[in-house]
């Protein structure tokens, strides 16, 4: 396989088919002092691609705040870690699996869930909740329904089988995803603070162990290349989408957690993207050591695999570990008990090189620092376009009498309708710790055996980001923060999944830069750092990029579960109040897009001081037990939020307000607002508290009955509201 006499054209083709630029190839030759062989070229290509090296995004990602008093591990490990008191930590991350999910929605989504689960249990945490953030194309696009069914099936298929509840997520539809859907999966796990596992290899001579499934020719890329090494049916040999095996992953999870109780593991790394290559290099680099691997020892599923294939295979459900030599037999017996592969394939060395042998011959020898520290990093050119202009809407252009029919149209639209059809396909109650089920602002799971809980929310508004990436970036962060506050939890930290188009286009890079700036400002102000994440670039079809989609997954802590809040109305006679300022912002709202079929008017601006002030006020009221239910006012505005509270609690409301511009008030998407249910005897106290904190509060109406009625407009029965809310998915 070694060849140093390539014709220039062949060489160029080979380099390009590995996704490397010629100047990057030059860098490899310089670093090695010779030309790489094919296996080495494959290794460089895997390590230096966008996914592993973050070469376009690294410079910008460094600008995000990543530390805080509760942050134990920020970005750079398999997942981030936060302190949740009493010696407990929460471990979490979100990751994309976009391209495979478009090709094979069920398996693509399933393996996405499998990958993120491994990232979390690699750290020593038992996963306790799965979440997701999904974007599909136009609801009427011929492929959309098939993709939705497949992705939902795959997420459920994997999560249900392994027995980790999928407790929530978000789904939206927009034509910009017609040819490139987004499947972002998030996992949260719980561990003990003194039992967190990291990936830095250590201890010269210690064994490097391969565990899990066997290796096959799954997802090997760089494949359209020189025919010499691949025969005619090579297409059949190189599936680009892997089949997930949640059953094996369940065994791997239990085996790893069992071994982690022993003092046996020095370092552990999941074999995810670029499998054995990235896991071994990551471990060596973090530990500042070398690793020797004998590829002949790797457990194989397919016959006659080459060194190149072994290093680049993305077979799922595998892990690499460095273990204490004395614990080898114990470790082996645990993996044997769970019917999993356990093979010592190499050892830690002091060479600071990755050296591979196979059948007695050296296949590769690369200094780790060339692969990692010398990896290319780009500061790509970018252009920041002016945000779409704000449009001020006026009452005279709207008919008040349309309010209720507009409400029905909006609540039946795929972007606002009930997601019950989706989450009923996810086991959201296994582990018996789910406190708030899907459909509220944030999902809440109990920390097993305690009276505290973790609140989780995923969010992003790509339309906001498209029309104003800075405010859109802020919004995505703030929306999850608000959702967590509305569940009664103290927001702690986020993970991000940055889905963008081609970064080599300056305007796309500009979106990325601005979204990061917005996110950074919001995170800093709210003391809500980024502790893990993932970047997915080149999300394009036919040269058309997706909308910028920085999906955010936020996590918060509820110290006493009796303070958990949900959105459903609780009692007749209680009063609904709106917290926060309303300014009739209809620009880029769901109202405009659904009712008027327009996408303009500008992204609402976010006042971070107000967000902080109003959020703190809500949490303060929760602690004082002043609130019966809370809902953040998000997509669709106040009236949509009220309808959701009615449906969830199966109680109506008599809305009694006086406003000059009813459409602006009911459907405007102004930020930093919450709806709260207050019992009449607490009303005065909350109003006094609000005025002391300079927080705006206004009474909206009295809860009760079986309809939503609006003074001077009319009423609508809850049963009709529910029919409209559930119609689209019920007819799926």
């Amino acid at each position, binding site marked *: 396989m070694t060849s140093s006499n390539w014709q220039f054209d062949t060489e160029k083709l080979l380099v390009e088919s590995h996704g490397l630029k010629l100047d990057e190839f030059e860098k490899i030759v310089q670093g090695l002092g010779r030309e790489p062989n094919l296996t080495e070229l494959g290794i460089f290509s895997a390590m230096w691609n966008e996914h592993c090296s973050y070469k376009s995004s690294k410079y910008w990602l460094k600008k995000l705040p990543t530390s805080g008093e509760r942050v134990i591990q920020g970005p750079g490990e398999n997942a981030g870690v936060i302190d949740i008191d009493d010696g407990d930590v929460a471990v979490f991350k979100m990751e994309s699996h976009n391209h495979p999910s478009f*090709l*094979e929605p069920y*398996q693509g989504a399933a393996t996405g869930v499998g990958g993120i689960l491994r990232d979390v249990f690699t750290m020593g945490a038992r996963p306790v909740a799965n979440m997701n953030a999904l974007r599909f194309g136009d609801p009427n696009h011929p492929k959309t329904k098939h993709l939705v069914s497949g992705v939902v099936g795959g997420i459920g298929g994997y999560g249900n089988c392994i027995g980790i509840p999928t407790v929530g997520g978000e789904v939206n539809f927009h034509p910009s995803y017609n040819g490139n859907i987004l499947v972002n999966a998030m996992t949260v796990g719980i561990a003990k603070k003194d039992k967190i596992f990291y990936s830095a290899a250590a201890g010269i001579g210690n064994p490097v162990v391969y565990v899990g*499934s066997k290796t*096959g*020719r*799954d997802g090997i890329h760089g494949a359209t290349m020189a025919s010499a090494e691949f025969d005619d049916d090579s297409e*059949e*040999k*190189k*599936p*680009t*989408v*892997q*089949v*997930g*095996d949640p*059953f*094996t992953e369940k065994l791997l999870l239990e085996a790893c957690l069992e071994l982690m109780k022993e003092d046996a593991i020095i370092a552990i790394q999941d074999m995810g993207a670029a499998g054995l290559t990235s896991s071994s290099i990551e471990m060596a680099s973090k530990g500042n050591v070398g690793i020797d691997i004998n590829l002949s020892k790797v457990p194989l*599923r*397919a016959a006659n695999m080459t060194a190149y294939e072994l290093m680049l295979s993305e*077979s*799922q459900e595998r892990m690499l570990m460095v273990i204490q030599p004395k614990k080898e037999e114990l470790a082996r017996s645990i993996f044997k008990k769970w*019917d999993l592969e356990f093979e010592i394939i190499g050892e830690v060395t002091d060479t600071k090189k990755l050296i591979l042998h196979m059948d007695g011959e050296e296949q590769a020898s690369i200094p780790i620092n060339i692969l990692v520290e010398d990896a290319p990093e780009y500061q790509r050119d970018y252009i920041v376009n002016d945000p779409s202009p704000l449009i001020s809407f006026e009452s005279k252009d709207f008919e008040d009498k349309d309010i209720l029919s507009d409400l029905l149209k909006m609540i039946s639209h795929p972007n606002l309708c009930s997601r019950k059809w989706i989450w009923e396909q996810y086991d959201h109650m296994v582990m018996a710790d789910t406190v708030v089920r899907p459909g509220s602002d944030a999902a809440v799971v109990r920390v097993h055996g305690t009276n505290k809980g973790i609140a989780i929310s995923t969010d992003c508004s790509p339309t906001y980001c498209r029309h104003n990436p800075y405010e859109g970036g802020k919004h995505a962060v703030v929306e999850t923060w608000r959702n967590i506050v509305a569940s009664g939890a103290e927001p702690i930290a986020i993970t991000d999944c940055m889905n963008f188009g081609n970064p080599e286009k300056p305007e796309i890079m500009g979106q990325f830069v601005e979204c990061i700036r917005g996110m950074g400002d919001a995170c800093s102000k709210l003391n809500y750092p980024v502790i893990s994440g993932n970047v997915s670039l080149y999300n394009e079809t036919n040269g058309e990029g997706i909308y910028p989609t920085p999906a955010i997954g936020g996590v918060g802590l509820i110290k006493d579960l009796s303070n958990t809040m949900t959105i459903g109305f609780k009692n007749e006679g209680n009063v609904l109040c709106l917290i926060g300022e309303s300014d009739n912002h209809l620009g880029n709202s769901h109202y405009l897009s659904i009712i008027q079929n327009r996408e303009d008017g500008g992204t609402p601006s976010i006042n971070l001081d107000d967000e902080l002030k109003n959020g703190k006020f809500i949490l303060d009221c929760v602690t004082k037990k002043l609130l019966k239910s809370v809902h953040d006012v998000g997509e669709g505005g106040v009236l949509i939020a009220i309808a959701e509270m009615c449906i969830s609690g199966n109680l109506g409301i008599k809305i009694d307000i006086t406003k000059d511009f009813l459409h602006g008030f009911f459907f405007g998407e102004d930020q930093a607002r919450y709806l709260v249910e207050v019992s009449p005897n607490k009303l005065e106290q909350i109003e006094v508290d609000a005025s002391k904190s300079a927080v705006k509060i206004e009474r909206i109406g009295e809860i009760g009955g079986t309809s939503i009625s609006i003074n001077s407009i009319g009423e609508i029965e809850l049963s009709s509201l529910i029919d409209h809310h559930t119609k689209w998915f019920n007819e799926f």
Partner: protein
Amino acid sequence: MLAKIHITLKKDVLDPQGSVIANSLKSLGFDNVNDVRQGKFIELEINSNSKEEAEKQCNDMCEKLLANLVIEDYSVEIEN
């Protein structure tokens, strides 16, 4: 005509069900089972003028709906 369509995972795609079935068979004492691959079997009745035409149509069905060629292979057998 009767069309018999087999859909299986491509040779090099992991077949988790197949491997678990193989292990269970072994634990039941069927030691000589080396490998198990499982798949779907679809039988459909089709009106067609010729076997060739029926086969062509079935191939088309497999490519458009019944199989996902990213991970699956199919074979079609037509009986009168």
